[in-house]
C-alpha cells in the first residue's frame, strides 16, 4: 500500500466509510509509517477544531425575507380551482356586484312595505268520502242444491 492509498483510506476511515480489509491494510501501513500516522492524527484534529467552532448566526433579515414569502394554495381539485377563481374577482367588479345586490334588496323591501295588506282568504274544507268496491259473484249451477 502506497502513502497516498493509506492516507485516502485514513480519510475515509475517520468517516466510517472503509471496509474491513482496507482498514486492516491501512493499519498495517500506519504501524510502520510515521508520515501517514501524522496525516491521520491531523485529519482528526481538523475535525475536532471545525466541530468546536461556534455556529454562524442566521441574520433576522433572512428570517423576515423567507417567512414573508406567501405560499400558493394547492390546485389539486377542480373545486379548489373554482374557489380560487372566485377569490380573484377584481375589486371594482366585486363592489359593483355588491351595490347592485343591495339596491335590488332595498327596492324589494320598499315595494313590500308600500303594498296594501291582503285579507286572509277563507278556507273551506271538503271531505271526499268513498266506499270500497264490493265484488258480487252470481251463484254457479253446480253450487245449487235440488229443491225438495
Amino acid at each position: 500500500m502506497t502513502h497516498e492509498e493509506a492516507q485516502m483510506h485514513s480519510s475515509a476511515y475517520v468517516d466510517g466509510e472503509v471496509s474491513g480489509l482496507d482498514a486492516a491494510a491501512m493499519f498495517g501501513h500506519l504501524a510502520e509509517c510515521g508520515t501517514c500516522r501524522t496525516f491521520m492524527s491531523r485529519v482528526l484534529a481538523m475535525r475536532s477544531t471545525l466541530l468546536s467552532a461556534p455556529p454562524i448566526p442566521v441574520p433576522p433579515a433572512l428570517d423576515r425575507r423567507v417567512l414573508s414569502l406567501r405560499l400558493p394554495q394547492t390546485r389539486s381539485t377542480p373545486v379548489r380551482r373554482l374557489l380560487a377563481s372566485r377569490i380573484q374577482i377584481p375589486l371594482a367588479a366585486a363592489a359593483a356586484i355588491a351595490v347592485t345586490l343591495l339596491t335590488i334588496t332595498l327596492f324589494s323591501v320598499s315595494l313590500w312595505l308600500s303594498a296594501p295588506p291582503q285579507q286572509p282568504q277563507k278556507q273551506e274544507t271538503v271531505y271526499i268520502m268513498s266506499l270500497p268496491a264490493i265484488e258480487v259473484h252470481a251463484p254457479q249451477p253446480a253450487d245449487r242444491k235440488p229443491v225438495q
Partner: protein
Amino acid sequence: MRDTDDQQLLAQVRSGDARAFAALYERYKARLYGFCVRLLADDSLAQDAVQETFLKLRHEAGHITEPRALRSWLYRVARNEALMLLRGRRNGNTADPDLIPDSETPQMALERKDVGEALRTALAALKTEYREVIVLRELDGLSYAEIAEITGDTESSVKSRLFKARRALAERLAPWWDERERP
C-alpha cells in the same frame, strides 16, 4: 424520525400550510445559511442563496419526487444557487473567495497562535469543490451518499475529493502544527 417529520411537513406545505413552511425553514435555516456563507464567504449573497432555496421549495414542493430526501434536495438547491452567485461574482469585479489567501494566509493567523482561525482561513482558501465537501462532511455531518446526491458525483468521487481537500488543508496548516510540535 426527522425524515418522517420532513415528509409530513412537506405534505402540509404542498397544501399551502404556512406554518409547516415556517417549521421547515426553522429546521434547516442554520445549516443552509452556514453552508452558503462558507461557500460564498459573503453574508449578503448567502442570504440570497437561502432565500432562493426556500422560494424554490415554495414553488416546487409538489414536484419533489422523493420527500424522504428533502434534506438533500434543499442542500442541492442551495449549492446550485450559491455556485450560480459565485459564477456571477467571478464575472464581476468583487472579491472571489478562492482568492482569499492573498488577503490573509494561515501564516498570518499562525502568528496569533489560533488554530481555529488558521483553519477557517485555510478552509476559505481552498478551491470551492474542496471547501464544499469539507463543510458538508465535517460541519454538517452528511454521509458520502448524501454528499454524492447533492453534488451530483459518485460516492468514490466524494471519497477522493474529501481526501484531497483534507490533504490540502493539512498542508496549509502544517506550519502551525510544526511550530507547535517543535521541541
